[in-house]
């Protein structure tokens, strides 16, 4: 069998997947998400004639919140743990490149985060069905967009974890998530700001990921869906942004002394 970029990357990915789905943080957050999503059933039942709407709204928000938490907690520690615990020595002393390690780690964590998100979605769909809302087909589209955002955020977390400690990486990631969801508002504010503030906000606008592109939850709540071309543009945006971050992470890892 010969080496190929994909084969070796998948070996690293498989190992990362196994490690992350066996992590206590993963189980704890998943269990908490499960409880929260089913709890929406109770909240729905006490809201007057809006039960399905409340369940859908809170359920989708819950899936998003817990997926983000799993991503940030596991992602920002991923490379740092490998470097600090020196498990990376085992990998990099074998015929594997830095890029394969970074991409493999990304794919492994992406698979486990996507799996947990789909697990939460299954609980959500069952909850909506039980509450009489039928099969929430559009929620699957919202979750698909969310998974794209999670992919971008995993790449971002891995990028941070090549140089920052997990706590610092988590803070950076949460800041980017917050700002990334507020870029539209910031752009509007910048129109009324002075030249310097306007320039600064413009730099942020073009540098940071515009995460609102992935938020179609409100649209879906009102039974609307984005067009195919808009969906493809978002897929491309996520892929390009994540690729740039993974290239950056690879370069930083290559420059590190062990």
């Amino acid at each position, binding site marked *: 069998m*010969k080496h190929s970029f994909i084969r070796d990357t998948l070996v690293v990915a498989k190992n990362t997947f196994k490690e992350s789905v066996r992590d206590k943080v993963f189980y704890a957050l998943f269990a908490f998400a499960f409880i929260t999503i089913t709890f929406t059933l109770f909240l729905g039942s006490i809201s007057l004639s809006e039960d399905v709407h409340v369940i859908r709204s809170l359920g989708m928000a819950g899936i998003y919140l817990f997926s983000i938490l799993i991503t940030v907690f596991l992602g920002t520690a991923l490379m740092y743990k490998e470097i600090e615990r020196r498990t990376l020595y085992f990998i990099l002393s*074998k015929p594997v490149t830095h890029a394969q390690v970074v991409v493999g780690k990304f794919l492994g964590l992406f698979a486990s985060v996507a799996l947990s998100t789909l697990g939460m979605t299954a609980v959500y769909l069952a909850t909506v069905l039980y509450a009489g809302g039928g099969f929430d087909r559009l929620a699957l589209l919202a979750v698909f967009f969310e998974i794209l955002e999670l992919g971008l955020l995993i790449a971002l977390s891995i990028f941070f974890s090549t140089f920052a400690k997990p706590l610092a990486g988590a803070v950076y990631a949460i800041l980017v998530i917050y700002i990334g969801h507020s870029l539209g508002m910031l752009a509007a504010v910048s129109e009324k700001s002075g030249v310097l503030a306007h320039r600064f906000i413009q730099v942020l606008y073009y540098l940071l990921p515009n995460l609102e592109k992935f938020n179609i939850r409100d649209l879906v709540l009102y039974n609307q869906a984005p067009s195919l071309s808009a969906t493809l543009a978002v897929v491309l945006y996520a892929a390009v942004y994540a690729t740039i971050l993974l290239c950056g992470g690879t370069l930083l890892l290559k420059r590190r*002394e062990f």
Partner: protein
Amino acid sequence: MIEIDSLHKQIDGRTIVSNLSLSIQKGSVFGFLGPNGAGKTTTMKILVGLNHPSSGRVTIDGHAPSETLTREKLGFMPEAPYFYEHLTGLEFLRFCGELFARPRGEAAYEALLRKVGIFEAKDQRITTYSKGMKQRLGFAQALVNDPEYVFLDEPLDGLDPIGRRALKSMIRELKHDGRTVFFNSHILFDTEELCDEIGILNRGSLLFAGPLGEFTRGLSLEEQFVATIEQLEVTA
């Protein structure tokens, strides 16, 4: 053959290894000795491709360790290894084996675990392993590709006398099979038993490289080593 030519390594402006030149013949057991902080581990990390020289050249069979194909024939056991604790011993060995072009398969991995004496624990999570068991697993993963060159960083640390004897016997077996073994060690008594040649590094500079007997001159390795280092400290 391992060749180190005028190797110089600086980290954060500090010289770790200075003008190191060495040749290690294929099939020999080479002990790399020196006090703490001498630069042994840094040299080994360069030899296995983890770090790069600041200047100078390191080659294994004529190729740089930074080339992935060179690393195909290397095995490396880091000092006091940490592991993926959620994996079992067998899963970890399988993972390491699959990173090579020709994974040797389940039977070979199990045979390796049997050889290092942790077969019974193969399906246990590594987190439940004792320090000695982890050391044995670290040794097993260094042999997972049946390497031509084996680099061991303090391989005898953390092992009980029985574990030490077993590991030394495996190192002898590697030599018997024509493998080249390069190891760092503080345990000079064991080094003396195993090595054909030694290299002594102090503060990044090579003090001696050659056959063991040429260095010891009738004394024990430990006596001669301590005397040499102490003499240097006095003259420094």
